[in-house]
C-alpha cells in the first residue's frame, strides 16, 4: 500500500474542506462576528503549523506508523497510552461525523428516511473502499474527488459575488477584540488540525520526504478556500443573521439566484460535502482499522474493518439520537482534549523526544 505525494495533497485538501465549512462557520461567527476572517486566517496558520509538526515527527521514523513509533519514542507503556488516546479520538470522530451526516441528510434531503438506513449505506461504502482499496483506494478517490470539490467551490463562490454587500465586514476588530477572535478561531483550527493524521499517513508514502511539502500545500489551499467561502457568508448575510443559522454555508448557496435561472444550488453544496466527508471518513476508517491491528499485533488489519464498522455504527446511532450531542462533543471533548492533546501536545512531545533520541543514537551508535 503506497500513496504518492500528489495523492497526499488531494487527501489533505478534500478531507478538510467539507466539514470545516459546514460546521465551524456558525461558532466562529458567534464569537468573532464579522472579524471571523481573521479567525480563519489564524486557524489556517495554526493548521499549517500543526501539519508541519506532524510530518516532521513522522519523518523521524518514515517506515513506521504512529502506533509503532510512539512506543519507540516514549517507551512501551506511555507509547501504548498515547496510541490509545489517538484511537479513542478516531473511533469517536468517525461516530460523530457519521451522526452529523445522517442529521444533515435528514434535514436537507430525506426527512422521513430512518437514520440507520442512511448510516448503513455509507458504512457499506466505507467498508467496501477500505476492504478493496485500503489507503491506496482512498488516495485515488481523493485524486478524483479533490478537483471536483475545488472546482465546485470556486464556481459557487463566483455565483455568490452578485449577492455580496462589501460593507458587512465593517467595522474591523472593533466589535470583537483579540480574545473573541482567538476563541472563534479554535473551531476551524481544531478541524484543520485533523491534518495531524499525517502522523500515520506518512508511513504509507512512496517518497516520504515529499510529505511535508505536499501536506502543507494541501492544508494551505484548503485553508484559503475555506476562508474565502466562509467570509462570503458574512458578505451575504451579515454577522447577526449568520451566527444564528445552523448551516450558513448551505443558506448562502441557497440564496444564489443568477438571472432567475440558476437557483436552488444547495444540492451542489450537499454533493461537495458528501464527497469531502467520504474522503475524510474512509481515511479515518482505514487508519483506525490499521492502527487497532497494530496495537493488538493482529496480522490481517482488514478483519478489523468490521469491528470499526460495528463500533462506529453504534456510536453514530448514539450521536444522531439527539440534536445537541454533536455540539457537546465538540465543546467538551474535541476542543479541550483532541485539539490540545492529540493535535498539539503529543505531536510536539513526540517530535522533541524523538529528535533527542535520534541525536543520542547518532552520537553513540553502539547503544542503538
Amino acid at each position, binding site marked *: 500500500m503506497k500513496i504518492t505525494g500528489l495523492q497526499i495533497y488531494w487527501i489533505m485538501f478534500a478531507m478538510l474542506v467539507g466539514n470545516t465549512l459546514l460546521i465551524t462557520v456558525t461558532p466562529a461567527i458567534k464569537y468573532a462576528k464579522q472579524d471571523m476572517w481573521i479567525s480563519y486566517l489564524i486557524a489556517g496558520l495554526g493548521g499549517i503549523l500543526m501539519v508541519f509538526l506532524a510530518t516532521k515527527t513522522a519523518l523521524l521514523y518514515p517506515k513506521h506508523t504512529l502506533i509503532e513509533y510512539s512506543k519507540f519514542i516514549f517507551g512501551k507503556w506511555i507509547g501504548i497510552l498515547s496510541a490509545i488516546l489517538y484511537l479513542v479520538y478516531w473511533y469517536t470522530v468517525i461516530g460523530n461525523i457519521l451522526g452529523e451526516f445522517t442529521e444533515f441528510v435528514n*434535514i*436537507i*434531503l*430525506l*426527512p*422521513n*428516511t*430512518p437514520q440507520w*438506513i442512511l448510516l*448503513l*449505506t455509507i458504512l*457499506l461504502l466505507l467498508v*467496501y473502499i477500505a*476492504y*478493496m482499496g485500503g489507503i491506496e483506494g482512498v488516495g485515488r478517490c481523493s485524486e478524483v474527488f479533490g478537483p471536483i470539490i475545488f472546482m465546485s467551490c470556486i464556481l459557487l463562490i463566483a455565483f455568490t459575488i452578485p449577492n455580496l454587500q462589501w*460593507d458587512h465586514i*465593517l*467595522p474591523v476588530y*472593533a*466589535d470583537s477584540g483579540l480574545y473573541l477572535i482567538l476563541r472563534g478561531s479554535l473551531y476551524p483550527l481544531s478541524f484543520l488540525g485533523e491534518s495531524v493524521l499525517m502522523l500515520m499517513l506518512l508511513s504509507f508514502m512512496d517518497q516520504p520526504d515529499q510529505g511535508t511539502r505536499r501536506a502543507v500545500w494541501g492544508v494551505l489551499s484548503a485553508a484559503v478556500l475555506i476562508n474565502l467561502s466562509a467570509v462570503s457568508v458574512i458578505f451575504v*448575510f*451579515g454577522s*447577526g*443573521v449568520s451566527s*444564528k*443559522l445552523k448551516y450558513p454555508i448551505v*443558506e448562502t448557496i*441557497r*440564496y444564489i*439566484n443568477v438571472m432567475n435561472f440558476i437557483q*436552488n444550488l444547495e444540492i451542489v453544496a450537499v454533493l461537495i460535502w458528501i464527497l469531502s466527508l467520504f474522503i475524510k471518513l474512509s481515511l479515518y476508517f482505514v487508519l483506525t482499522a490499521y492502527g487497532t491491528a497494530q496495537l493488538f499485533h493482529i496480522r490481517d488489519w482488514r478483519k478489523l474493518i468490521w469491528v470499526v464498522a460495528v463500533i462506529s455504527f453504534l456510536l453514530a446511532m448514539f450521536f444522531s439520537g439527539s440534536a445537541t450531542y454533536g455540539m457537546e462533543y465538540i465543546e467538551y471533548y474535541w476542543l479541550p482534549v483532541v485539539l490540545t492533546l492529540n493535535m498539539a501536545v503529543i505531536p510536539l512531545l513526540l517530535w522533541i523526544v524523538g529528535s533527542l533520541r535520534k541525536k543520542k543514537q547518532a552520537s553513540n551508535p553502539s547503544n542503538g
Partner: protein
Amino acid sequence: MSKGSIVSVILCIQIIITTGCWDSMELNDRALWLATGWDIGEKEDEIQICGQIVLPSNMQSQSGGSGGGGKGESFIAVSAKGKNVQEALENQQGMLSREAYFGHRRVTFYGEEFARHGLKKEIDINSRSPNVGIRTDVFVVKGDTALNAMNQSNPFENPPAIAALKAHRQAGGRGDRVYLDLLMAANSEGIRPTIPTVEIGFIQKGNKEAKGEAKKTILKLAGLAVFGPDLKLAGFLNMDENRDYLWVRGDLQKKSITVSFDDESNTSLVLSKIKGKIIPKMEGNQITFTVKLSGEGGITENNNNLDINMRENVRTLEKSLEKQTKERVLATIHKVQKEFGLDIFGFGESVHKKYPHKWKKVKTDWDHYFAEANISVNVDLKIRQIGMTGPSLLYKESEIKE
C-alpha cells in the same frame, strides 16, 4: 463464494435499501404553495394563515388558449386558523388532498392588523423550515387583510402571487431581498426594518361609473411600511417616499424624477445609474450626516422652451432637478425623523461602521439621536441623453431659448 461475489451481493442489497422510498413524493401528491398570507385570527393569540396554491389542471388549459372547459382560476387561496403556522397548517391540511410543499414559495403577505401586532413572535417558521429559502419577497397589505389581497386575480400573471413580486422588480425596488433585509435589520441596532406595501385598488382610477371589467380591483404597490421595536408596524410611507428611502440606502434600481421647471412647464428625467451613500461625521458628541445621492439618465419629457442641445441649458436643467430632488429627499427624511423617530435608513449602521467605539455609547438610545440628527443631502444628477429632439418640436423658432 469468492470475495468478489460476496461484494457484489452486498452491493445488490444496497440497491434495494437505497431507493429512497421513505421520501418518495410524486408531483401529483404535492400542492405547490406559492404565497403565504398572515392575518390575526378572531380569537386572542390566534393567527390565520392563507396560502395560494397552484391548480395545475387549470393552468394548462389557459396557456393552451383553447378556451372552453378550463375557465376557472389557476389558483386557489385556502385559509385556516391556529396558534401558530404549524397548527394552522395542520388544521388546513384536512382540506387538501395533497401535501403542501413550500419549496416554491416566493411571496409573503402580512395583513395590516397582523403587522401592527408585531412580527417578532410569529414568523420564526419562515427561516426555520428547511424547505423555504431566505430569498422571499414580503409585503404588508395596507388597509386590508392578506387573505383579501391573495384573492385578487391578475390579468397578466397566473397565478397572481407572482404579480406582486414582478411589479416590485419593475418598480426598481429590492425584490426578493426584502426578507433578508428584514432579518438583518432585526439583528442590528443601527437600522430599523421596513417592508414594502401593497394595496387593493381599482384598475381604472377616477372612473366612478365604471362597470364590468373596468370595475375590477387589482393588487398594486403602495409604498413602505415602517417597523419599530418588536417588529411592530409603526406607519406607512407612500411610493415616492419609498423611492427616496431606497435611494438613500443605495438600493434603488430605477427612478424617474419629474420637476416643474418654471410655473407652467415641467421636465422628466429617467435615471439609470443610481447611487446613494450615507457619510457620517462625528465631532465631539455632535453627529452630522451627509447623504450623497447621484444618478445619470436621459430626459424623456421636456415641456418648456429650452434648447437642451446647449450645454448651459442642460446645466440649468440639472441644477433645477438637483435642487428639487434635494428638497424632496430632505422632506422625506425629516418626515421619518418627526413622525416615526425610527432610523429606517441605516444612519446608525453607518456610524457603527465608521466610528465603532463611539457607536457603543449611542447605540442603546439611537432612535432618539436619529430624531435629532442634523442631516444634509447632496444630489448630483447628470443628463446623458436628451432623446430624439433638441428643443421641443411644439415651440416656434422665436420662442426657443438657446
